[in-house]
């Protein structure tokens, strides 16, 4: 039996029990409906999946970066032999795509989303000029101007969201898993927040040991805590 619905060559029935089908280029709907039901089902399923996929993508809303005054903040907390320190920046560039309805009380499983983030390295400031200079040197800022992140997977479990993505610092890319909270905010905005612990050395950054006049040598701790609040807006 010829199951190829698109052949134009007439084929004689081979098997009396099966329904022979001869499809000519001018196949009508009627004759299509008369074709093998399994084939029908498969075609329909394929079409339906394509339609569903198209529908899903169409439902992802795009949220983009907001100006520094809107509340975005990335803060890095660290330690040293002298005292704890922190650096922060209000500039978190990039875009986030998701269906806002799917984010609230999501069922367990994967949540469709994309995210691409960029933080210019030199915008992170401790407001101590010497420390900022040392930081830029150790991050080799002249060569690696940005910290970037790409979301690979957003998963919901018992109402909590968890992200898995690639973080690139100092030219080194590492997968990171960060629980995140995503809350709606006024004016079509979302606030995405989370925190994670990282090691400088994992990204090839040597913890600085600068000598400061009057204080001696400062040994910086390798482990840092990153806290971020990313405010993004849907520019309808």
């Amino acid at each position: 039996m010829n199951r190829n619905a698109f052949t134009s060559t007439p084929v004689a029935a081979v098997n009396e029990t099966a329904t022979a089908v001869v499809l000519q280029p001018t196949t009508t709907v009627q004759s299509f409906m008369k074709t093998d039901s399994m084939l029908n089902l498969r075609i329909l399923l394929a079409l339906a999946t394509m339609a569903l996929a198209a529908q899903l993508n169409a439902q992802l809303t795009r949220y983009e970066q907001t100006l520094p005054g809107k509340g975005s903040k990335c803060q890095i907390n660290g330690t040293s032999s002298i005292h704890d320190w922190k650096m922060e920046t209000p500039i978190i560039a990039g875009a986030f795509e998701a269906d806002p309805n799917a984010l609230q009380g999501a069922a367990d499983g994967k949540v469709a989303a994309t995210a691409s983030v960029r933080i210019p390295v030199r915008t992170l400031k401790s407001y101590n000029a010497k420390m900022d200079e040392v930081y830029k040197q150790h991050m080799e800022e002249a060569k690696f101007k940005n910290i970037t992140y790409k979301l690979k997977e957003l998963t919901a479990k018992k109402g909590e969201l968890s992200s898995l993505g690639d973080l690139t610092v100092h030219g080194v890319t590492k997968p990171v898993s960060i629980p995140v909270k995503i809350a709606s905010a006024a004016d079509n905005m979302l606030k995405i927040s989370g925190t994670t612990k990282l090691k400088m050395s994992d990204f090839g950054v040597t913890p600085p040991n600068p000598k400061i006049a009057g204080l001696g040598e400062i040994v910086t701790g390798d482990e840092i805590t990153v806290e971020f609040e990313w405010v993004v807006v849907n520019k309808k």
Partner: protein
Amino acid sequence: MMMQHDTNQAVTDLTRRSFLRTSSFATFAALMGGIPLRAAEGDAGAYDETKSSDAPPLNFGVIGCGQRGREILATLATMSNGPVVAICDVYAPFVKRAKRSAPKAATYTDYQELLKNADVKGVVVATPTHQHKDIVLAALKAGKHVYCEMPMAHTMEDARAIAQAVRACSKVNFQAGLTYRADPQRLNVLENIRQGAIGKPVMARAQWHKKTSLRRTSASPEQEKLMNWRLDKATSTGLMGEIGIHQLDMACLYLNAQPVSAVGFGNILHWSEDGRDVPDTVQAVIEYPKNIRLVFDITLANSYDSEYEVYYGTDSAVVVRENQAWMFKEVDAPLLGWEVYARKDAFYKETGVVMMANATKLVAQTKEGGELPPTEAPLYKSLEAFITNSGKYGDAVEDFVSTFGEDDKALREYLVQAMENKLHAADVRIGFEATVNAIKVNDAINTGQKIVFKPEWYQL
């Protein structure tokens, strides 16, 4: 008739400074029982070490290579992060002289051409005062950071035009050349005064004395006329503007007020034969709120005691010479606390225990009654601030614009945060106000009329 001879013409300001250091002013202060006010490294507030750093280099273009321009070039030559890539002067011999300090610099006689040089990131405007405005406005348009020598302009209108142009432009850093505003020692004095070191201020005195003609010479009469813009009332803000502006600005800073009124006198008493009409000897009484007056005299006919200010208060008098200061306490003044540990230069041969402001450091560095350790010149600190602040400013603008595009209001808001820890320096408002004050005091001197200062002069 014998030409009046200016023996001091050849003595540059740098030589004069070293003359002062070896002079016996320190001994004089010691004779009067002065306590040096000296910001020590690590002192919070005044010289904040956390603010200074080896900032990345800023490529300089210096426009105006007269004496001041060459002094700036000589200072930049000592700074590893102040490379001079371009120099400009309409007068070729000045360019040639300037090249000694900046051998690798491209040379120009037209500042518009220098501004087209993409290598130049920051410009110094050190031309005659009346030429500042056009050059500063062009430099801002060309996207260069600007360091403008003082006075900013020779008229209120030009000063206002510069200030408004700077405020309209958010993309570059502007610094006025009031060097004392960037000087850690001067800032330390400010902090002491604000914390009550002199008690209630009652009056102030300032002087700037140097026997010098200020005349520049040239083979060509036209060139000589151009070079002596300082001696011509049409283009000069007089001794108060060209010289006194720095100390006048400091008085306003320490007394924490703008002048209320000014009266003054000025005459040519010595340099009367070269056709100048700018007085060579002036006195001014500048009144501040609460009846506090500054008496300020400047002469080009005598060098005695050079340059200093005294701020008199009910608890002490503070004498400031350039960037060194001493406190002379009244016997009934309350103990501030810190002066117990400060170094004192004693009056009698048997000096008391020398106690230092920064006990460990200064004791180690100086012997009893000896010279205080040298500090970097105010001009150095001022240029250092310009290099550091301009670098930070340019980076912040670039980061913002490359991320968010052009949004002037939001950019300005971001810059407030990004420049939070900038080095102390005179911004355009401070430069503008100091220029207004100097112009008006000079007017009082020239007219012999009392001038009452109006708040609207400072409006932009």
